[in-house]
């Protein structure tokens, strides 16, 4: 496990990190001009939404080690909030970006408060069940949610595809930056310490429950924001946004990127989304291949793919 240690000799590495982050942002910013097709920009926008979800998942689960198997609960909550406000009450779509994180955060408190006080597997299972039950409820109460078809006819936040791409990119960059800064602060160190040994943290006088619930709430708010962005991009929300499969896809992306690094999962999300699009021919077998990939990574590269690559590169760059 790698930890940030703030010693002078490592400060130069920080600037390398900053530089690489800026470079990655620059590449993503010029990418639409390189390919210049609406289709590619659309794929990339969805990939960036997945990046937000993966980074927010990693913030809670990667740092504290409490696996969240129902991240789609927060995504769906955010997306449906956007849908309700926009379709039923004709609220300006910009408000979704404010309302969706709040609603997702409320959901996270409802799940987190009873389960995160406890040790053991309760949290993981409660998240999984919570998402599955919400998916059922959207179908059962179809009078309000539109059932299997969902809510249609949302307004886009920004009209042009290119504009939407940049909006998503800016939000993704902001979220990644904030989460990464928190992760590198004393807060993040406490979260990592909870993963290492919860009992010792408690003995040291740290209110473990507070830190776990607060980080879940932050993670949920970011996921909800991503959900609203996605909903206004697709112009449609459906029960699939609560699906367990979506949560699993996000977890796989995090594992590919490198768990606990925040930036790795963003890379993993973009990589897997682009790969999926280029492998459209095999779409039937996609999930099957994803799952095999997950098994492979669990057994042979528990650190993931993207973060270790960067570590190696960084060692090369800073002698």
């Amino acid at each position, binding site marked *: 496990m790698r930890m940030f240690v703030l010693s002078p000799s490592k400060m130069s590495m920080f600037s390398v990190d900053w530089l690489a982050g800026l470079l990655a942002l620059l590449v993503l910013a010029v990418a639409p001009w390189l390919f210049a097709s609406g289709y590619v920009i659309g794929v990339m926008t969805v990939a960036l939404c997945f990046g937000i979800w993966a980074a927010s998942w990693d913030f809670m689960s990667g740092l504290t080690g409490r696996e969240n*198997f129902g991240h789609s609960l927060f995504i769906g909550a955010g997306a449906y909030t956007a849908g309700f406000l926009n379709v039923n009450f004709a609220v300006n779509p910009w408000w979704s970006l404010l309302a969706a994180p709040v609603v997702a955060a409320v959901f996270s408190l409802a799940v987190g408060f009873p389960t995160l006080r406890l040790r053991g597997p309760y949290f993981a*299972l409660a998240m999984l069940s919570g998402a599955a039950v919400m998916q059922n409820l959207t179908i059962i109460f179809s009078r309000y949610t539109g059932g299997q078809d969902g809510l249609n006819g949302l307004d886009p936040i920004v009209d042009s595809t290119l504009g939407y791409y940049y909006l998503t990119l800016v939000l993704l960059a902001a979220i990644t930056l904030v989460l990464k800064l928190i992760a590198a602060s004393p807060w993040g160190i406490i979260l990592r310490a909870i993963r290492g040994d919860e009992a010792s943290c408690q003995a040291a006088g740290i209110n473990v429950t507070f830190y776990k619930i607060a980080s879940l709430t932050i993670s949920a708010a970011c996921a909800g924001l991503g959900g609203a962005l996605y909903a206004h991009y697709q112009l449609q929300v459906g029960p699939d946004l609560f699906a367990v499969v979506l949560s699993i896809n996000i977890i796989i992306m995090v594992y590919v990127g490198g768990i606990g690094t925040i930036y790795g999962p963003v890379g993993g999300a973009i990589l897997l989304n682009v790969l999926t699009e280029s492998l459209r021919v095999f779409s039937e077998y996609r999930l099957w291949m994803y799952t095999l990939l997950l098994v492979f990574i669990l057994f042979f590269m528990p650190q993931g793919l993207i973060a270790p690559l960067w570590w190696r590169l960084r060692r090369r760059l800073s002698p």
Partner: protein
Amino acid sequence: MVQILVYGAVISAIYAMLAVGFTLIFGVARILNLAHGSFYALGAYLVYTFTANANLPLWAACLIAVPLVGAFGVAVERILVRPLRRSMLAVLLITLAVALMVEQVLLLIFGSEARNVPSLVDATYHFAGVDISAQRLLALGGGVTILAGLWLFMQHTRLGSAILAVAQDAEAAQYMGIPSDRIYSLVMGLSAAIAAAAGILVAPFQTVIPSMGLLPLVKAFAIVVVGGLGSIPGSIVGALLLGYSETIVAFEVSIEWSQIVSVAAVFATLVIRPSGFFGKRASF
């Protein structure tokens, strides 16, 4: 009234079969098995294949399907779970991966439309003014028989005692010469077989689709939380409680609201008494 009694009993028996396996493998091996629902689905689909494609008689199909799923459970434990057992996180992920793979394979082979599994018995009994299909009664009888058999096995055989010993303290059991690794495999197989039996018993009156394993997993989790994680009597009591309250809500209020019962039960249990009815207090 009679209908609520009988339907509730049938549902409770099925839930109990699922929850007992789920809690057993957790209590003994500390494996939280997210693939538990896929054993249930596999049972139903194997019987479908054997009867519809291989033209076997139904009883033979059942007799082959249950051990086959049990063997699958053993294989999952040995090949996938055992190397990763150090980390609970990895175990959760790998069992989830198994669940997904099973669902995907079923989807690729059978497609997403619902399949019909024939009933073992076709009659319908007219009893105190309501019609009750014999298949439901068979599900009830089968469930009770299997649970009773499991109880006898656990309490009155050497192997059963060995399982209980490993559940209490795996290290101490190892010192006493009990091969705990082999016990883990055995328990995984056992719980998979019981889940498959549950799937077979309900298949005739349930929709058999590839994703049918998810909801039973959620229900098993709810029951196990209410009853106390790792406790077999707890999971039976929890199954009765949840089975009946769901049936009552479904009959008296509406089917829709019955979905909420298990969530409410989990929430209430975790807030009021996190260890459930029979769970160990010490672990909190």
